[in-house]
Every structure is written in structure tokens, then in C-alpha cells.
């Protein structure tokens, strides 16, 4: 599934890198520990977190992630948007809490395990 499709189906608000929403999603990972994401998230994954500071953009860029979804309607810090723009990382906001959002993602066919 493409990121654009996901944005539409989950009613996400895009906060950065609006020109980079055409990538294919390979899977998903939910974590608020950056080192955990660096260790376990896979290239092309979508990352679900409540962290909003600018290091999430760096982490997503390191792992070539397809984008970051912030939960509970948490807004990224201005520096985060700036950094994410520079790294072409789409940061999106969902009103849902992590549990609900991940459930919906799973139902849409986004898996946490490699096929």
C-alpha cells in the first residue's frame, strides 16, 4: 500500500514532506525508544510514536523509513518539521491512541513481521 492511500484511509494530517507520499509501505513498527527503532524498524516501514522532538526525523532518515505517525493528536515541534522537510520524511498526525491506530493499520494489511 502507498502512503497516500494510508493517509486517506486513516484520516492523517500531513505536517512535512508533502511531496514524498508516493512510497510503498513495507510494514510497520510502534515504539517510543529511538534506539529500539534503530535496531528493529525496517527500511520502508511506517513508524508510530508519541515522540515529537526533532530526533525522530534523524532516526527515520537513518533507517530510510517511509514516514512517521504521531499519535494522540500530538503535534511535531517546529524544529521537527524543519528537519523532516530537509530529510524528506513525511510526519503525520493521528487523533487516535497507539493501540487503536496500530489495530487499524494491521486491518489494512500493514504487518510488523517480514513476509
Amino acid at each position, binding site marked *: 500500500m502507498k502512503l497516500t492511500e494510508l493517509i486517506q484511509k486513516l484520516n492523517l494530517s500531513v505536517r512535512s514532506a508533502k511531496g514524498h507520499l508516493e512510497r510503498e509501505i513495507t510494514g510497520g513498527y510502534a515504539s517510543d*525508544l*529511538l*534506539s*529500539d527503532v*534503530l*535496531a528493529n524498524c525496517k527500511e520502508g516501514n511506517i513508524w508510530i510514536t508519541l515522540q515529537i522532538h526533532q530526533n525522530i526525523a534523524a532516526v527515520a532518515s*537513518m533507517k530510510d523509513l517511509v514516514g512517521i505517525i504521531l499519535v494522540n493528536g500530538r503535534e511535531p515541534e517546529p524544529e521537527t518539521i524543519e528537519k523532516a522537510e530537509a*530529510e524528506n520524511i513525511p510526519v503525520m498526525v493521528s487523533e487516535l491512541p497507539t493501540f487503536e491506530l496500530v489495530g487499524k493499520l494491521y486491518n489494512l494489511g500493514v504487518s510488523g513481521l517480514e513476509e
Partner: protein
Amino acid sequence: MAPNNKISKIQELVYEIKVGEVMKKDVFTVSPRTHMSVLRLILQDKRFSGTPVIDKGKLVGIISVEDFIKWLADREQDCPISEKMTRCVRTLYADEPLTHAINKFERHGFGRLVVIDRQNGKLRGIITKGDIVEGLLKKLEVDYDDDETRRRRIRHFFEDILADKATLLFHYDVIGHDFQRAGECASRLKATLKRLGLHPQVTRRVAIATYEAEMNLVIYTDGGHIRVRVEPHEILVRVEDSGPGIPDVEKAMQPGYSTAPEWIRELGFGAGMGLDNIRKCASKMALRSTVGKGTRLRICVSVENGAENETN
């Protein structure tokens, strides 16, 4: 680029780009039964210089400002458009190259040409000289961007260097406790390695290991520096700081062990996985630390092993 090249590029593009790609698609049309008095309002309101006349989905003519002026000048009675429109309309097919459109414009001196579908003759759009210029400019811009990125990608960089041994050295300064700029060194290093055309897997391993090391300097030390040595067969990252040092290196290497304060953990750092992540990314790793003096970390990523399946 020389001006001559540009011209030939445009000549190439006018054959490559199709009329359908640059034409305006949402076209305002009128019925042949519309009266000339109504047309006046439409032309005034929409500021058109002409518009296609459509009957039952088919193009039957075109009515222009010239036709309208002629009708005014002749001081005739109000009548349907069908009596005054130009019936013999010059059309283009949407799949024709731009060069056909340019030729037609030159030959007939029209301001606009109606574009129809080759299969069913239905109206597809309208094209003006302005649309052609706009389409060409857009295409040139895209090509220019592609060219720029291609130039940056220095593939097989080392193959172009004629020497018995070639080494590239990069130096980065890390400022302690500066969470605003934390990770910048690793980001810059990653961008650099990418441009050098290193294998994406190798680049990612080096970048992640460097990021974790950089974060350790930011969280626990007053700063330090990172030196990176790039050779055709391996990348060596040396990270140095001047304190406080790690009391128990073995313990620090255990996944999950952390001495980070609560507020740092709340930011998502200090999970006790950094050194373990580095170990997973590295082909070889060495950590030496003296309490009160500082820590030296050597991370080696071999190009051959690094390009194999990612372990983390």
C-alpha cells in the same frame, strides 16, 4: 550548456511531448442553440477569446471573438451561435506530438486549437501557444533536476582515483548536551556516504552506529569528535570524548542497561540499547574507557560483509 544544445533539446521535446500532456482539460463549451446575445455575456465573464461549440457530445464548430465582432458590425438580429460559428474547425488529436500543434499554429495563425480524441472524436481539451511554452518549461525543469542528482551520485568513486592506496577522512565535532543538534553528524555522514555511492546497507550500518555513538556523547559527555576513515574495503569510525568514562564497560554493553536520567529516557533516548546497536552494525568494535579521562570507541564496517543481509 551551450545555447545550441538547448535548442536541440527543445526540438527533441516537441516530438516527445504529446498534445494531451500540455493542453487545458477543463474546457468551457457552448451549445449551437445558445444565442449570440448570451455568448456576449460568456465571453465578457470568462474573458475567452473563443470557445468550442458542442452538440450532443460532438464538436460542431468554434465561435471566437472575431465571429462575435463580425456579427456586431453587421448589426444583425440575435440568432443562435450555429449560424455564425466557424464550422470547419482545425483540430488536433491528443496523442499527436507538440510539433504538429506548432506547425498548425504557424500555418493558420490561430490562437487556439481544439483537441479531440482519435477514437471517438470527442472533445478532450484546448491548446494555446502559451500551453506549449508552459509544458516545455516544466519538462526542462524536471530534466534539469534529474541531471543535478545524477551528477551528485559519484558512483564507484574510488575506481576513478589512480593511486596505490586511497583514503578519505571526515571529521565531525559533537557538542555535549545539545539535543537540538544531536544526530546531525550522523545525518551529514550518511548523506556524504550516499553521495560517494556506497552500498545502501553499508551506509545505513555506518550511519546507525555513528548516530548511537553521537547520542552517547550528547547525553553523557561534554562533547567530543568523530573521525571517519573511508577506504574501498572498509569504513572506520573513531569516536572520542574526554569524560566522564564508563565504570563497567561489560555492563554498559548489555542490552537494556542504562544510567540515563529519567528526563532523557522520556525523550526516547538512553534505553540502554545504543552500544548493542553499534555492536550489531559493526563488523568489528572496540571500546576503551577510563573513568575521569574519557572513552574511545572504534567501529569498523567492512564493505564486503556490510553489504550482505542486514542483521539489524
